[in-house]
């Protein structure tokens, strides 16, 4: 960092100013001219937080997607179905047992197991045939969507998270000062902050796993050169199964988190598949860091779009994708 400051004085100064202005936007009480031009501060800060927390959710879904691709070159278009199935399974377990955390755990394990099954029974047979694997995942997602509709119908489900995770918390950010001089603080849903914390934890966990464990080292080696890894005596098939389990499990895990923050209904599979696709296209396929950056960009774009120009929110997301593809086809953090 110090090196950066010494080398690029001007840039460092600009970045410093931007960060300072940003912090000021969040913590200061907005003067009238700013309210006139940007609208109420409450809207801005809430939208910002919404964008970041939504990014957390997107990261949870997309990290599994990108992890699987990174090692196996498998574009799993059934990832959205795994998300939705995880949510439904988690819901059934959580309602039956009355324990939300149990639902979360079972969703992770069950979808992880389904991932292993897919890998062992199907993808293993067509290794190296990327396109056919992808087509298979499309077929699976068509059938899965229809069967889930048969079992859980078109109803909307919502989880009941533990009481302490529900409701609003008051943040130490002043929204406006009332005429009486009392500050009005911004309230924010507790669960959404939890989503962010979980996402950060999962992100750090993945990083530690990939960079600090032996297994992670093998995975990274596999990403770089699969043949070489196999030649050096590592059981590649086992490694694949483990990674698929983690990737799929993360989708199921995200299903419960997302289902609690929002809700579960048919069609969510396509929505989260699309989100994952755009996040990894923007961030760079195969890179977990890229998924985090992509998720942040897309999450913020979606929420600011929704709050400030609802009609064209989708287009903003899409423009980001096209722009990144035009400038850097392999994505922000993509290596190849």
């Amino acid at each position, binding site marked *: 960092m110090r090196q950066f400051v010494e080398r690029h004085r001007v840039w460092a100064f600009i970045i410093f100013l931007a960060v300072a202005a940003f912090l000021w936007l969040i913590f200061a009480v907005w003067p009238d001219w700013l309210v006139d031009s940007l609208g109420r501060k409450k809207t801005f800060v809430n939208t910002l937080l919404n964008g970041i927390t939504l990014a957390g959710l997107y990261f949870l879904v997309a990290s599994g997607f990108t992890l699987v691709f990174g090692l196996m070159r498998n574009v799993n278009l059934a990832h959205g179905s795994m998300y939705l199935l995880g949510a439904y399974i988690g819901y059934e377990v959580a309602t039956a047992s009355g324990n939300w955390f149990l639902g979360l755990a079972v969703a992770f394990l069950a979808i992880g197991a389904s991932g292993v099954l897919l890998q062992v029974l199907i993808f293993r047979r067509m290794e190296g045939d990327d396109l056919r694997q992808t087509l298979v995942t499309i077929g699976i997602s068509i059938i899965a969507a229809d069967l889930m509709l*048969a079992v859980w119908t078109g109803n909307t489900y919502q989880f009941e998270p533990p009481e302490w995770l529900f409701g609003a918390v008051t943040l130490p950010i002043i929204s406006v000062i009332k005429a009486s001089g009392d500050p009005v603080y911004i309230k924010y849903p507790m669960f959404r902050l939890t989503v962010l914390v979980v996402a950060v934890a999962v992100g750090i966990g993945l990083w530690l796993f990939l960079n600090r464990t032996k297994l992670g080292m093998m995975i990274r080696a596999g990403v770089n050169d699969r043949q070489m890894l196999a030649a050096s005596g590592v059981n590649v098939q086992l490694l694949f199964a483990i990674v698929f389990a983690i990737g799929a499990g993360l989708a199921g895990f995200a299903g419960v988190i997302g289902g609690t923050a929002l809700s579960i209904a048919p069609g969510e599979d396509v929505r989260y598949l699309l989100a994952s696709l755009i996040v*990894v296209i923007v961030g760079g396929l195969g890179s977990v860091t890229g998924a985090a950056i992509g998720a942040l960009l897309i999450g913020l774009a979606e929420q600011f779009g929704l709050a400030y120009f609802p009609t064209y929110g989708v287009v903003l997301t899409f423009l980001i994708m096209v722009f990144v593809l035009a400038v850097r*086809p392999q994505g922000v953090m993509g290596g190849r």
Partner: protein
Amino acid sequence: MDARRLLSGNFSFADLHPGVLLVIVFLLAYPGFASDFFVFQIGAYTLILGTIALSLMMLGGYGGMVSLAQLTVAGLAGYLVAIVGTNSVGVMGLGWPWWITVPFAILAAAVFSALIGAISVRTEGIYTIMITLAIAVAFFYFVRQNYVVFNGFTGFAGIEPPTLFGVYWRDPVPFYYLSLTVAGGFYAAVLYASRSTFGLSLQAIRDNPRRMRALGYDVTLHRVFAYFLAGLIAGTAGVLMVWFNGRISPGSVGVDIVIDILVIAVVGGMRHPIGPFLGALVFVLLQNFAIDLIDRERFNTVIGLAFLLVVLFSPDGLLGLWQRVRPKLRFARTARYEAGRAEERDRQGAGPLEQT
């Protein structure tokens, strides 16, 4: 293949298999004995869906680029017909005459397709399917939200084909022959193009882009041009589609239909241009009559299972299945079978599903 020889000049009727002749006669005579429903909703619709899937087959089969945005391209052409032509909704409808509207819509669709190509071909092969899927879904969301140009959720209605030479072109029989002409024309054109210099280079690029680049070919340009051609095909089919329905709305370009087109192409077979039409026929028959045979509720499971089984066990679709079964059924004619060298070459050349 016979059509190819027909086009390349060294064609004689002796080459023409009786089956082909039978099919041509059947297709031409079809409206003579089929009910309007079968002519229009089964016949014409099969040809339209088949043509859209044909554009996917051309990209995927010869170019190795499986684009999920072909229906989107067709949808754009359909939308443009409503926007610059006439509609009954009272939004847009610039009222251009059909002879400007139609070429404009098709050309714009082809340019759109080329742009999609330009965005997606710069990346690695498997990216194509992801990017085109993302584009298709984004287009769906966009037209659903945009009221100024695309009239949002409601879309457009009252879109009429022109009345020409005293014929109303949406009447079942004229519309059928119109669709047959378009489908047949593109079918022959794709067959012909696959043997042209461009088609051969495209297939070579599919098999080994690096080598082709080293040989001095502009790989990107070839691919983008292929997208442009596919856009012409899909765009024309899109115009027919909007005439067929008389309306277009976001539901017409939804994700499920985008996937349906892929299902049609893959189930039919991506090696030969007849595959998409075969797939479309099976699909349309199922779509219309599944409700009489099984519970309509699980229609998508049937479609998905058929797709999955084909991908798992017969990567070349129904076409591949037939080709595998045929020699066993008729081993006596094996000699003649092997004489069809052109076909043999085709088999070696094609097969993106195994070679990418």
